[in-house]
């Protein structure tokens, strides 16, 4: 094992590899910043370019591109309230308020440092825990996955800003939208209303571009001026960001572990881990009311979780060939094309390539750390750019993002419709994220629901007789029932104290 580790390190420190690191980081961050494109688009687009590279260079390129695209998506979450990926949605809750207060630079620095640390924790998990944790994921059957997805929706509804009931309604709407098109199990066509454009379903990429990016452009057009009216705090933003990470190191570590564990469960991924980490952080905080108003922990938690999930998603991919999400699926395709078969072979015959992959992950965290810290100051000035410039930029990039996904003008129309809906949702306290999560988890929920019923010969008891399934269900119910009950008790106590 040690000779392989040193060989891997030697390969990544060559000049050729360093150039690939830099190129992949810059491309990844730029693509990450563009709304709706994200790591899936980046990997799909650049995979063919790796055919002309040797195995080691190809793996370095893909790993670093993946990591830096996820990082890039977080930048716009903070500065523009536009998440680049679904894994950065929760970052907007506190990141954007910080940018409006002129603390965008500090938030970026803290996010960059925290992300790098979380990414390194994720890599350590990938290297050391893969064989152990894969056994745990094998315990999850269809009923457990269904309940896990249900728990995910309820946690997101509770964690999101706005009314929980409205969040559940949005989750339900997202699920209904995911049912349009073909049944994931039988392939039966349904809810297409006779329209050919709906037969392949409603893709969540143009929906999320509309809900987050176009709606934000509409809001900025209403507001005029610029995002931040406050003076930008550029003095010592590096030091204040670093201090924030050091002070909240527990948040970073805790959220990284949450992200790693979630990442291991195939199909759940960064769409849930950032919310779960945010919710847990808010729950354990002594000052939960400060979340949503610019609390740095509200940035560090989701960002640490999603960076660790990036590595976590590759654990079942490498060990069992089961991708954790669509991005890790494309990554797996890339590996297969370069002759790397998932499973035991990776750790025996291809041990040197695997050590290169691990080193690429480690150095990938450092490469976007350098780029992020170097550019955080100029990037934070985006919040001072006049909305007269920002609005057309966001609109054009959003339209291009929606169109590029499937080269379809229909997706542009969908994005515009959801842009208007997203505007209403933002202004009227509907948690937008719940709709997206419903759409993402819909196919997972339905396929596992149907499979569970097949296994149990149609008996619904399977969802509560399995211990893990019951635990997930109880967590979902507790997250919905306990907070309002506690709130009522708190108000009753305050009333009683006031009368005394």
């Amino acid at each position, binding site marked *: 094992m040690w000779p392989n580790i040193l060989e891997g390190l030697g390969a990544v420190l060559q000049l050729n590899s360093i150039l690939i690191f830099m190129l992949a980081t810059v491309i990844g961050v730029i693509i990450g910043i563009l709304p709706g494109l994200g790591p899936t688009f980046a990997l799909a687009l650049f995979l063919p370019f790796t055919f002309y590279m040797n195995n080691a260079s190809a793996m370095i390129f893909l790993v670093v591109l993946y990591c830096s695209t996820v990082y890039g998506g977080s930048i716009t979450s903070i500065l523009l309230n536009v998440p680049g990926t679904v894994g950065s949605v929760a970052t907007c809750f506190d990141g954007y308020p910080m940018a409006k207060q002129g603390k965008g630079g500090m938030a970026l620095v803290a996010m960059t440092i925290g992300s790098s640390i979380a990414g390194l924790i994720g890599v350590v998990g990938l290297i050391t825990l893969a064989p152990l944790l894969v056994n745990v994921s094998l315990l999850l059957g269809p009923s457990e996955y269904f309940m896990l997805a249900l728990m995910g929706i309820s946690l997101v509804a509770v964690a999101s800003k706005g009314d929980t009931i409205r969040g559940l*309604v949005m989750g339900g709407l997202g699920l209904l939208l995911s049912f349009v098109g073909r049944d994931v199990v039988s392939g039966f066509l349904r809810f297409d209303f006779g329209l050919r454009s709906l037969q392949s379903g409603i893709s969540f990429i143009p929906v999320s571009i509309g809900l987050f990016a176009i709606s934000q452009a509409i809001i900025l057009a209403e507001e005029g001026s610029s995002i931040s009216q406050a003076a930008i705090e550029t003095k010592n933003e590096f030091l204040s960001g670093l201090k924030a990470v050091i002070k909240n190191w527990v948040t970073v570590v805790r959220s990284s572990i949450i992200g790693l564990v979630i990442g291991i469960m195939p199909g759940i991924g960064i769409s849930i881990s950032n919310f779960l980490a945010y919710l847990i952080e808010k729950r354990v905080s002594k000052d939960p009311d400060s979340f949503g108003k610019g609390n740095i922990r509200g940035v560090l938690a989701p960002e640490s979780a999603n960076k660790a999930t990036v590595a976590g998603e590759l654990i079942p991919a490498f060990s069992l060939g089961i991708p954790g999400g669509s991005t890790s699926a494309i990554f797996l395709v890339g590996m297969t094309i370069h002759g790397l078969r998932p499973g035991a072979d990776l750790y025996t015959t291809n041990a040197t390539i695997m050590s290169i992959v691990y080193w690429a992950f480690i150095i990938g965290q450092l490469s976007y750390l350098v780029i992020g810290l170097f550019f955080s100051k100029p990037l934070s000035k985006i919040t001072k750019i006049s909305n007269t410039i920002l609005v057309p930029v966001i609109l054009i990039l959003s*339209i291009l993002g929606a169109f590029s996904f499937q080269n379809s003008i229909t997706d542009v129309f969908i994005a515009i419709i959801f842009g208007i809906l997203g505007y*209403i949702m933002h202004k009227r306290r509907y948690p937008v994220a719940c709709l997206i999560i419903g759409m993402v988890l819909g196919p997972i929920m339905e396929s596992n629901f149907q499979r569970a019923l097949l296994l149990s010969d149609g008996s619904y008891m399977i969802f509560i007789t399995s211990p893990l399934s019951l635990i997930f269900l109880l967590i979902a119910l507790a997250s919905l029932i306990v907070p309002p009950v506690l709130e009522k008790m708190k108000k009753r106590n305050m009333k009683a104290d006031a009368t005394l």
Partner: protein
Amino acid sequence: MASIEKIRKIGDVIFSTFVFIMAVTFFIMSFSLPKNSALMPRLVSIFTAILDLPVMINIWRQRTQGEEKVKVPVYITTLILFGYYFALILFGYIISSLLLIVVIARLMGQKNWIATIALSVLLTGITYYVFKMLFNVELPKGIIFGA
């Protein structure tokens, strides 16, 4: 023209009603599906409709409060976006994007024509180059000018 808060409330009423109607529609349509394909949509549509009902009633009852001054109201941006969509189909990416940027910038108060046109040309040009040449995305050419 109605105040922006009234418009948002109308939007809210339409949206919550649309969600309810959609849930009911999916519930009804599920009866024409095979059992396995119908089950989850049926359960979700019942759940969504039941939860949306009090939300809808609450919105209908809410009074519009306050007034907010806005730069470019949402109904104007909506019209412009739909106009852009049809312009994309007719004229293609370049012309429709040039027009969109000029219109939005002027509405938002950009008085300097040179700056407006420069922004429009630069943004359209750079994005065209990056997406068409680097990413190899075939951008809309429009019915009038292209195949």
